């Protein structure tokens, strides 16, 4: 079961995801990158079966690339991107659903703020200050409830993320040794740290 969570702070968003690709009793891979860059200033952290995860995030990112090319380099706002994703999930829901639960984090230069959107595989969408998908929510939401406040800086947000990872390693049944953490801010989408290099496939 994947662990995906994110925290919004003043001027950006942090997304974190575990790096294991497993099914039943087997671990296929322990350096998977579940956070896909959608556009120069947004990323989608996805939880779900590998096929849907890859298919959905690549499909969305290519469609956003077309939008940008066709509109003279103008990017969709994070709000618009989130609603576009939701729309695609909703359309697919009664045809061939994508079983993906995701967190979309983006930075909008026009407002100078980051925003985080929580989306589940039924295509429910909600804007949140912090969020988790999967079993992680049982462990991490309470930590975030207590520690998150308006106007955090990046270091404080990373501290919350680290606290959550520590809690999971202590109390969560599944062993998730590797986490990848990405930051989305005015400088774009950057990998802050990873447990295992995803490029090493």
């Amino acid at each position, binding site marked *: 079961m994947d662990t995906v969570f994110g925290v919004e702070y003043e001027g950006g968003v942090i997304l974190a995801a575990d790096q294991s690709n497993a099914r039943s009793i087997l671990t296929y891979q322990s350096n998977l990158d579940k956070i896909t860059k959608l556009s120069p200033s947004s990323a989608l952290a996805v939880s779900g079966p590998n096929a849907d995860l890859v298919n959905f995030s690549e*499909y969305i990112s290519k*469609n956003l*690339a077309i939008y940008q090319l*066709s509109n003279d380099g103008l990017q969709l706002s994070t709000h618009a991107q989130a609603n576009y994703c939701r729309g695609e999930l909703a359309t697919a829901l009664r045809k061939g659903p994508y079983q993906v639960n995701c967190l979309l984090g983006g930075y909008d230069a026009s407002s100078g703020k980051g925003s985080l959107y929580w989306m589940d595989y039924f295509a429910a969408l909600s804007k949140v200050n912090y969020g988790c998908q999967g079993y992680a929510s049982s462990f991490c939401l309470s930590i975030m409830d207590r520690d998150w406040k308006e106007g955090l800086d990046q270091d404080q947000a990373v501290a919350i993320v680290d606290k959550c990872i520590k809690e999971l390693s202590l109390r969560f049944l599944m062993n998730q040794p590797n986490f990848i953490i990405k930051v989305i801010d005015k400088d774009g989408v950057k990998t802050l740290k990873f447990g295992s290099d995803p490029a090493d496939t």
Partner: protein
Amino acid sequence: MSYDRAITVFSPDGHLFQVEYAMEAVRRGSTAIGIRGKDCVILAVERRALAKLQDPRTIRKIVPVDSTTTLAFAGLTADARVLINKTRTEAQTYRLTCEDSPSVEYMSRFIARTQQKYTQRGGVRPFGIATLIAGFGLNDENEQVPVLYQTDPAGTYSSWRAQVIGGRNAKSLREFLEKNYNDDMGMKEATKLAVQALLEVVDSGAKNMEICVVKGAGEKHTMTEAEVAVVVKEIEAEIEEGKQQKTSTSS
């Protein structure tokens, strides 16, 4: 009323008149020039005099179709818009399925294939545009080299070192380019040649031209009016000098 009857049919002497009329539509469009330098491709288009109340920034004749491929067209703008959208979608589809960027040759082949399809289908007319596609590709020694392709309403495509599409003077401009082109041109030289060629057709200099320099690694630079004006001035100065020398030697 059945829409499956072809519009483009052969004439008794083997012509496809609709395609030839489409090429005439291209000739009525404004000129576009492509020049392949040794490390860049220059796309230069004539920006026809606009209505006073029109916003020039919303008229784009040189467009990106992919992060590494740029296209200039001549002919019917609305047809170009449709074809460009199809091309952009194709580029992203290629990226989605092959997880790699499509080559300039692939994109040109796609555009040509699409243009040809519309000459052999029921109920549709050919696209009234010709395109110049610029970018970089790999040569036999696996080095990045600039490439320039051209397509026309018939659906043919080929690679060119320099080419002109659109405008009434395309033939004479091509001859001009043949005379003055050489294989080893750097960015400055190639830009100058493009501007020189455009000056033959364009009314009044820098503000009626749009010049785009396509460099390697997906980089491209659209020259500002001021930058173009500098090149125009240089060329005009050379012409003046040439004239003066002529008059001084003849007198």
